[in-house]
């Protein structure tokens, strides 16, 4: 689970700076530039007035001569964007909590109770992760309609766990495995019930795993698109990705400023969340990979 900070071996420190620059820093810099450029472009467009955005002759497109908040203002006050933001938060938070609850129970049962057939159930749940939403959305649309959930947050809150539970369960199983079984045995001898053991011993010890599963679930549901596009029809019920794509484009007129502002402000919450927990994420991956 621990991330080893320095893996460089042997006599790397003898390497001269220019050589290391050519071998490591330059290619790394180029790749990072490639990965970051779209965000830079998003930000530049967001704060650039229309006059500059469509005039590459007079203004350098990479810079902003007269920064403006006009696009963000338009997005927040002239569109349903605040509602989309609210829906996205509600849906992501609810489906994350449902999935975490179901996954903690399932992972604990599979990994710790080891009931008859738990291996196969665990494998079946993992296989569920390999079923892509683009195969499920058509029958799910029929089901959502039959249950009367069409065009409401509940349709998304109940369907998102189908791709969150398999992932979270798999991640948590790996975490529970790292907790010494002896701790639970001691508690059992002392007369604790299974539920007490789960809540007072296993869960606190696997908190980093639960947190990374939660962050993962949250960002996956924030990112979800095809279900939200299919199950939601009125503007006030949409999530950010769907709202941006379907409501900010009027016929052939693209409001690039507002679109980029939506892309930027819709990305910021998940980016902030991730930047706090990126080490958890990498160590969770390492823990999962070690198996």
């Amino acid at each position: 689970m621990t991330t080893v900070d320095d893996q460089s071996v042997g006599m790397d420190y003898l390497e001269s700076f220019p050589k290391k620059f050519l071998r490591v820093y330059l290619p790394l810099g180029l790749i990072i530039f490639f990965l970051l450029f779209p965000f830079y472009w998003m930000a530049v467009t967001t704060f650039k007035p229309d006059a500059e955005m469509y005039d590459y002759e007079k203004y350098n497109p990479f810079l902003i001569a007269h920064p403006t908040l006009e696009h963000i203002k338009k997005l927040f006050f002239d569109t349903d964007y605040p509602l989309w933001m609210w829906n996205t938060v509600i849906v992501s938070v609810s489906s994350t909590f449902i999935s975490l609850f179901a996954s903690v129970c399932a992972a604990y049962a599979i990994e710790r109770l080891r009931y008859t057939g738990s291996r196969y159930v665990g494998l079946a749940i993992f296989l569920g992760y390999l079923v892509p939403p683009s195969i499920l959305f058509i029958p799910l649309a029929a089901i959502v309609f039959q249950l009367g959930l069409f065009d409401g947050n509940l349709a998304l809150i109940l369907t998102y766990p189908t791709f969150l539970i398999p992932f979270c369960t798999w991640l948590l199983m790996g975490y529970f495995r790292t907790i010494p079984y002896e701790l639970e045995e001691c508690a059992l001898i002392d007369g604790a019930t299974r539920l007490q053991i789960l809540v007072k011993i296993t869960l606190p010890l696997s908190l980093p795993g639960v947190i990374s599963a939660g962050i993962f679930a949250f960002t996956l549901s924030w990112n979800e698109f095809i279900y939200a596009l299919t199950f939601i029809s009125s503007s006030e019920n949409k999530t950010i990705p769907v709202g941006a794509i379907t409501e900010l484009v009027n016929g052939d007129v693209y409001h690039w400023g507002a679109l980029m502002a939506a892309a930027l402000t819709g990305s910021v919450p998940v980016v902030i969340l991730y930047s706090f927990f990126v080490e958890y994420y990498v160590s969770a991956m390492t823990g999962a990979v070690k198996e």
Partner: protein
Amino acid sequence: MAVIAEPVTAQLKRSSLWSRAFESRNFLGAMFMVPAIAILILFLAYPLALGFWLGMTDTKIGGVGRYIGFANFVSLSKDSVFWLSVFNTIFYTVFASIVKFAIGLYLALLLNERLPFKSMVRAIVLLPFVVPTVLSAIAFWWIYDSQFSIISWVLIKAGLLTNYIDFLGDPWNARWSVVLANIWRGVPFVAITLLAGLQTISPSLYEAANLDGATNMQRFRHITLPMLSPIIAVVMTFSVLMTFTDFQLIYTITRGGPINATHLMATLSFQRAITGGNLGEGAAISNAMIPFLVAAILLSFFGLQRSRWQQGGRD
């Protein structure tokens, strides 16, 4: 004595039944599984089965369908747009996956070096993976704009071009454009996961190889690659699955255009089922993806078995 003895034994009996049930791992296990299994059966297993069924009906939105057997598949087999979408899907998956793997592995090796601000660099690298795909795809849509593309502008200023490139208006340009956007999005996942894999390789192996006078290339070829291969198989299975069933990028950037040149099977099935109202036909198109997905999973599964067997491990 006798008066109170009766209820006490009854209580004891009842509590022992309960406590015995709660001590039984099988009963307790089943109870703990209920929330996950209920959701997965209702919204995953049942729809999967329903999807198979829908693909063999002529269901329209808002109507009840009839069973028509394989008629949907027969008509699809004569549908040139469907075959074009199959071609596009394979093209998209093959090129994007190969490049994602190459850049991802290279980036993982670079990130595994001794670097200043290591964790910050990692956080930055993850960004394209973290940001909602549709929102970053909007940025690519703007980057590929026919009149205001920043790529065209730079190339013209550099004197390499005279005209703006019509990125999304020309079939082949559009195909390569969406492949590039997919690579951009997928590289961080491959890189970070492979980096996690690299960190599990024991440094002592490299030290031993150093003492034996192995070159960098030899160390990579004989230590890194074999030790990494199980993770490579897992990552690439996921990457291929996600690319093959991709919907968001295409729907946002091209909606399948120009003239269906970038339609993937997923976007075509959405168009036929939801926009066009032919649920049955759309379901048949998504069902047609399943054999490819199963093949990808089996391939990596048997690949893993084989490498394990070659290394002398048990199954």
